[in-house]
């Protein structure tokens, strides 16, 4: 049953991912991308990461995509007409397919040798402690320095966006 549900969600995710690339109108691409993000949020719920699913919907589908749709409408972009270089399409598709073959080969051949430090996280722990608390604990103890650096990154991004949005650049 769960595998069947997974198959449906995966199908929707991949089809809408293709629509992002295929649509001629940027607005349609953006809306397809939102559908893909919701499918990924569903995967996160299936992988017992409800906090990540919430963040995915709020930050990605809510904030980033609204910003992108806003810019597309602000610039009043038209549908692309024709392609000037057809070589780019051929070469790009070949490289993309090669990437896919490489990834599938790597993941299906190398999974028997999957290594890594395992932890004690399981369904029982997540339900008892709570997923948000587990992430918070990890982030403010083991990952405190990256967290602080992230705040610096966001500050730089704010300053950069303000400078770039000035009248004369």
């Amino acid at each position, binding site marked *: 049953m769960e595998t069947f549900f*997974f198959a449906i969600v995966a199908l929707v995710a991949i089809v809408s991912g293709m629509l*992002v690339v295929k649509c001629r109108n940027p607005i349609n691409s953006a809306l397809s991308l939102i559908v893909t993000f919701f499918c990924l949020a569903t995967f996160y719920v299936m992988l017992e*990461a409800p906090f990540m699913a919430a963040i995915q919907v709020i*930050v990605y589908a809510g*904030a980033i995509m609204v910003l992108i749709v806003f810019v597309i409408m602000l610039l009043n972009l038209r549908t692309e007409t024709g392609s000037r270089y057809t070589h780019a399409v051929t070469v790009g598709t070949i490289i993309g397919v090669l990437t896919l073959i490489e990834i*599938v080969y790597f993941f299906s051949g190398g999974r028997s040798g999957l290594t890594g430090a395992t932890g004690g996280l399981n369904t029982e722990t997540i339900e008892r402690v709570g997923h948000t608390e587990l992430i918070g604990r990890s982030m403010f103890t083991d990952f405190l320095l990256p967290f602080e650096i992230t705040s610096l990154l*966001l500050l730089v991004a704010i300053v950069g966006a303000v400078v770039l949005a000035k009248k004369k650049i």
Partner: protein
Amino acid sequence: MVPLPYYLIVSGILFSIGTIGVLTRRNAIVIFMCVELMLNAVNLTFIAFSHELGKIDGQVFVFFIMTVAAAEAAVGLALMIAFYKNRESIDVEDVNLMKW
């Protein structure tokens, strides 16, 4: 219980679609959206492995990736608006001032 390779294959397919989009499209905003798609494919891999190995670290990484994506969206879209003001276009083939 869906096995781990299924998630990895879906993530790989999404990543490849993103790669094709980045390499074939000419609209800078669509290229930007394809980059977001690739980032999300990687996020799915991180969370799938985190679930498989029973460690929370992968999900903290996803959190940081989302922060970087948000910063990237702010700066990237500001750049595109600045470029549009100068050139009246956001076609990547019109970005040729520093082209050799």
